[in-house]
């Protein structure tokens, strides 16, 4: 029982980070119908920015600063490379983000260097006693961040003018334009927000062990999460992210014992198995809107 609970806690902890990443994918998808393969690079850039900033200003100030810096980067990317592609097939834009990802990661890797970089978080691997369970503090921090960012996004989309404008332009761009919504700016804002959220997620991916040049792969685990949740549902992204975290955590604990033939480290690819299973049953994810085909 103790093992199960610890597995659940770890799953929810990492799941929160995947959920954040998944939300960043979904925000971009809703604004421009593109899956941004540049998120891994933005996440890594965020983590690295935090690792450089946390020395002088401390971790808690470094995270928002890095998020703002990476948000600016995301805004710049949208203006220079995504904007000119309006009206072109989404596949082409997705491949552009793939190219951006490769290019940005080369630059970020220079800043990482060959070793692991510590993000300077105050938690490390230390644990706190919670109902008799030794729970790692960083998992609690991850869950809290998801709650804070999630609540902030909910309030933003629900109550602010810009949130309303973004929802309008994702619903129907032309109608939104007619109503006076600057749709182009909303897309840029979506990219900035998504990049900022990815940067925050990156900072928390780095807690405990730090980041190195291969950390970017973690961001791709958000892809099963968004597919499971449905590409256009933020709530679905959160559920998908937590689900991916739980599945991965359970495979990490029990697969060696019960399914040893799947090989070591199967937990790392288990999200993709989950993805295949979900898509075979429900092609548009658990919460995604079914695409209506008009002729």
């Amino acid at each position: 029982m103790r093992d199960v609970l610890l597995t659940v806690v770890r799953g929810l902890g990492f799941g929160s980070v995947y959920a954040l990443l998944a939300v960043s994918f979904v925000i971009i998808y809703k604004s421009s119908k593109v899956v941004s393969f540049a998120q891994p690079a933005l996440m890594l850039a965020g983590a690295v920015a935090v690792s450089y900033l946390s020395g002088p200003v401390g971790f808690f100030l470094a995270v928002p600063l890095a998020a703002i810096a990476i948000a600016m980067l995301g805004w710049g990317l949208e203006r220079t490379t995504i904007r000119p592609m309006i009206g072109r097939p989404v596949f082409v834009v997705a491949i552009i983000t793939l190219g951006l990802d490769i290019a940005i990661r080369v630059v970020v890797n220079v800043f990482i260097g060959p070793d692991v970089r510590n993000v300077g978080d105050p938690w490390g691997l230390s644990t706190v006693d919670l109902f008799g369970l030794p729970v790692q503090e960083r998992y609690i921090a991850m869950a809290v961040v998801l709650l804070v960012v999630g609540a902030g996004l909910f309030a933003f989309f629900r109550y602010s003018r810009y949130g309303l404008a973004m929802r309008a332009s994702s619903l129907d761009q032309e109608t939104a334009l007619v109503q006076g919504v600057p749709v182009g700016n909303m897309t840029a804002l979506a990219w900035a927000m998504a990049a900022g959220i990815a940067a925050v997620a990156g900072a928390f991916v780095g807690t405990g062990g730090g980041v190195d040049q291969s950390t970017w792969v973690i961001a791709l685990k958000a892809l099963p999460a968004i597919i499971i949740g449905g590409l256009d549902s933020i709530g679905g992204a959160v559920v998908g992210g937590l689900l991916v975290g739980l599945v991965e955590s359970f495979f990490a604990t029990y697969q060696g014992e019960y399914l040893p033939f799947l090989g070591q480290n199967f937990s790392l690819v288990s999200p993709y198995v989950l993805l295949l299973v979900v898509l075979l049953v429900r092609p548009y994810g658990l919460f995604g809107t079914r695409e209506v085909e008009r002729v």
Partner: protein
Amino acid sequence: MTAVREPSKSPSGSTAPAQTPAPAEAKGRRPLGRPMLYTAYGQDMALLNTGAKKVAVGALLVVALLLPFLLEDDLLRLLATGCVLAIGAIGLNLVTGYAGQVSLGHAFFLGIGAYTAAVVSGDPDDDRLYGLGITFLPVWLLAGGLVAALVGLVVAPLASRLRGLYLAIVTLGLVFLGTHVWNEWDAVTGGVGVGRPAADPVLFGVDLSRRTESFSADQQLYLLMFVLLCVFALLGRNIARSAIGRSFAAVRDRDIAAEVTGVDVRKVKRRAFVISGFYAGCAGALLYSITGYLDPSSFGLLVSVQFVAMVLIGGVSTISGSIMGAFFIALLPRLTRELPEYLPFLSSSATQTPNVFQVETLLYGLLIVAFLLLEPRGLFGLWIRIRNYWKAWPFSY
């Protein structure tokens, strides 16, 4: 543009004259001295439908066959790799360019082909690794291609259920699952960091990867890969310009319209994945027989991205574009190695920071972005521009 014929762009299903003319009519006869006049559909759809093309292709073939006697061995090896990559790129272009099914899983199929071929040709007495000991090249080549095609058939139902980016992400998942299998299945792959010998290119008792009396190993490999590329390219062109290719284009352009006009969309997607899997499997089998060794980590996401880059840089839905793109990507490392001579701040050692390896990866990324932004038709599009300029010269239009 009326006078310009773009042969590689197969006409989309709905607009093309769907009925092939009766055989006698299809041949058609051209009046003497009017080389550009088409009197029959068959002439228009011919492989080499203009005189200039016949001359150019003939000249290219002659040059390519003379190259082994003109170039150094290391360059020949690079060109041999380019030929194999071109086979893989044609496969990806058939499924992504012609049929419009975005696949990021090409590395997975490449791996299946490479390992199938390695197992078929492997040493049967080896205790550590599986091997059947059939080193005859056509056997392991076809085995690699067919097994990959079979896996393509298994994956295809996903493609017929999913569209666009959903498919891209699922195929990306395949690459990760594949990498896991390669890492863990020691009896086939040799395991991480150990690897296994790849398939031996043996043809009629001659091991082409060893030097013989008259040729060096690289000359033989280049000639072999070049001949195979010609075969696969011709096959690809014929697929593209036949009914299968037209049905691919119809599904790509508007799948609902294609379905209404009687194209079986599921069957077409299945076909596209099978054909692409076959090409990728063959390319994987051949690619590592050049170096003679393969490691489980060689089939990661970057390989898939490189193939996508080949297709996009070369030219989407053109066979000649795929070949140009593949050679471009194959020769890119060699070109960046030359850079430190001209840019002294670049280092050629991997441990210092602005180094050529970083520039190389950066260029993959930036070239994809730049080509998509500035010349979506890729190198093939650049060629069309140059050709049209000189056709109209000295006028600008």
